[in-house]
């Protein structure tokens, strides 16, 4: 009972902290208010005792379940090691929901970092809607985030919010693509531009894509555009389905291999102008999302060895196509056994 009471007390302390952070910023106040409101909502559910299953509470809760004496001993030892400044930062961090262990680890990720800097960065991430656990994980994996100047951090945060990646959507992005804060603005811009202007996705769809397939941020813009064109023109997949099936996250090589294999088997047809096909095409998830073994067994209904040979042949075809020049068979044509029945005028190139 006392345990629960303490929890509630801690969260109440977080409210003034949140508002303090908000007060520091004048532009985008509305959005921050919303973010803060979102946090408050979480807090109210927590304080009513309802939201204890929430993941952000998992850590501290788990921690709290350890034997009381050991906890107190650890706490005591850790506290002794902290500097004054660090101790200043520790309690806000604890208020945000980080466990003692995490707080200590965070403080020691980049020893050269000023604790205030650490707090600022972490606060930004919290305000973007991330929970303490994902923030901890992200910082552990990408300590270089702590080196970012806070202004850049804030600029990038607001840009990401504008793209629609606030409110917790950032978690996945940060997990797959931690460089989202450190990469150059123009690189993110070029990806977004390709998606909006070349591929003609709506703003909402762009946000959805970035949320679901953050790895697109790492791709070359031209390659990304090609991938989309392959989906849209070659496979006849519409915008909504490209977003829904996370099409853009799969490598173009894998997509092409599986698609062309199905097409040549006669199991996939590009829809005509009216979007119709003569055979029912397999679902995209059965083509791209499944493992290769399942793809071969269920969708293609072919053997692994045939698929291996096919991949080699396809790679060679692409090599020859990109080499551009004469047809791949030219070197063999003079000796090729051609079974033709028609009257044929000699092409000069085909002379023996």
């Amino acid at each position, binding site marked *: 009972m006392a345990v629960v009471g303490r929890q509630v007390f801690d969260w109440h302390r977080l409210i003034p902290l949140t508002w303090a952070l908000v007060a520091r910023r004048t532009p985008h106040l509305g959005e921050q208010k919303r973010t803060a409101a979102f946090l408050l909502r979480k807090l109210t559910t927590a304080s009513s005792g309802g939201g204890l299953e929430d993941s952000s509470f998992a850590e501290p809760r788990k921690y709290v379940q350890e034997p009381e004496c050991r906890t107190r001993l650890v706490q005591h030892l850790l506290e002794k090691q902290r500097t004054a400044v660090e101790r200043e930062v520790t309690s806000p961090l604890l208020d945000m929901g980080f466990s003692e262990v995490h707080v200590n680890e965070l403080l020691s990720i980049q020893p050269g970092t000023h604790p205030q800097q650490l707090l600022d960065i972490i606060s930004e991430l919290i305000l973007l809607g991330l929970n303490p656990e994902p923030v901890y994980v992200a910082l552990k994996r990408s300590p270089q985030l702590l080196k970012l100047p806070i202004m850049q951090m804030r600029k990038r945060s607001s840009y990401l919010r504008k793209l629609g990646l606030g409110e917790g959507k950032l978690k996945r992005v940060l997990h797959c693509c931690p460089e989202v804060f450190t990469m150059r603005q123009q690189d993110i811009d070029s990806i977004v531009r390709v998606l909006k202007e070349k591929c003609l996705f709506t703003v909402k769809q762009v946000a959805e894509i970035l949320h679901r397939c953050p790895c697109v941020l790492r791709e070359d813009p031209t390659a990304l555009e090609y991938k989309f064109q392959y989906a849209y023109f070659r496979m006849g997949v519409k915008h909504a389905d490209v977003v829904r099936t996370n099409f853009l996250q799969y490598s173009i090589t894998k997509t092409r291999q599986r698609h062309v*294999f199905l097409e*040549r*088997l*006669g*199991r996939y047809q590009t829809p005509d102008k009216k979007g119709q096909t003569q055979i029912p095409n397999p679902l995209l998830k059965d083509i791209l999302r499944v493992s290769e073994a399942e793809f071969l067994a269920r969708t293609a*209904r*072919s053997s692994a*060895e*045939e698929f*291996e*040979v*096919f991949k*080699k*042949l*396809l790679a*060679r*075809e692409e090599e020859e196509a990109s080499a551009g020049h004469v047809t*791949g068979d030219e*070197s*063999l044509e*003079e*000796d*090729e*056994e*051609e*079974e*033709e*029945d*028609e*009257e*044929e*005028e*000699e*092409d000069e190139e085909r*002379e*023996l």
Partner: protein
Amino acid sequence: MAALVVRGVRDMLKRADFATVPRRHRHKKKWATTEPKFPATRLALQNFDMTYSVQFGDLWPSIRVSLLSEQKYGALVNNFAARDHVSAELEQLSARDFVKEAISHGEPEPENGQTAAPSPASWACSPNLQCFTFARGDVSCFPPARLGSLGVMDYYLMDAASLLPVLALGLQPGDTVLDLCAAPGGKTLALLQTSCCRKSEGWCLRQGRLPTSSCQGHTEYDELPGPGHLAANDLSTSRTGRLQKVLHSYVPQDIRDKNRVRVTSWDGRKWGELEGDTYDRVLVDVPCTTDRHSLHEEENNIFQRSRKKERQMLPMLQVQLLAAGLLATKPGGHVVYSTCSLSHLQNEYVVQGAIELLASQYSMEVQVEGLTHFRKLFMDTFSFFPSCQVGELVIPNLMANFGPMYFCKMCRMT
């Protein structure tokens, strides 16, 4: 006035016995500025999807993907070049001679120390043929053939399955051989490689006319090809031109000069009348829908709408050619019919149709020879269709992307 003149000219042209330019020459890729909207290759694929999905059922998808992917080649060693050197070179590439392997495969193992009975001559493979291929699943390519030290090319790249009809024909030394639809010359070259067409009686080659003896002054129609001769024919002169080029590149001049090879451009359907009962072995490799080729080449594609009638008449043409080939065979001689199509209508139906035709119109008895044993020899290299009514069919498979090649061996009994 001008209009009348034009009309007059047109009428005159119609009445005159000019061979009109066949419609199939009208769209020439190198002249046309736009692509056809519905290409013939796509029409071909639609046609195949319709017929072969029924004919082959569950096998069709794997055949289809193989047809649409790059085919596999075999390298036929040119025995007139430095043969051992060429074989060694090809072996270095990790290719192996599938003919040698098949034959050693087929040698029956001695039971209880006794030597097995010698194989009957009728299904012995044509001798002296060496053809290298890469192993199953290996997609390596052979480098293009080169001119060797003896002035001829070292090997001929062809679909390895094309060699099977020649092997099945079972040439023996001294045989008189007819290749009724010889161009562009791969199988003709293979026939020559067997070196069964060796002995010469000295008859002269004259393009477009029946052979006359060079030294004995006999009249035109008296001389028929003697033993050890190869007669190669194709209706199209441009295609026989290609055949000549192949022979020039691969066969040394002295062998060609000895007049063992006669190349003609006559109508194959007339062979029954021209040279009836003449040949020991006849190969009838008929014009067909060239399934693999039709899926890739747009030019002169037989699935063009303008050639629909021609395509529908193909089975009839094929029956006539096979019948002519059988008529040209000596009684007791053998004929192999082959196509590079998967279609029942061009394969089994034609064989059965020709046999019935000859039975009813000429009272000729023709027996189909089973090739099951032959098929077993080559099962490791090729994929065979298990349920042909007559003859054998090599079906393309990604692991062994040869074919399609249908062949059926017959013996003229009477």
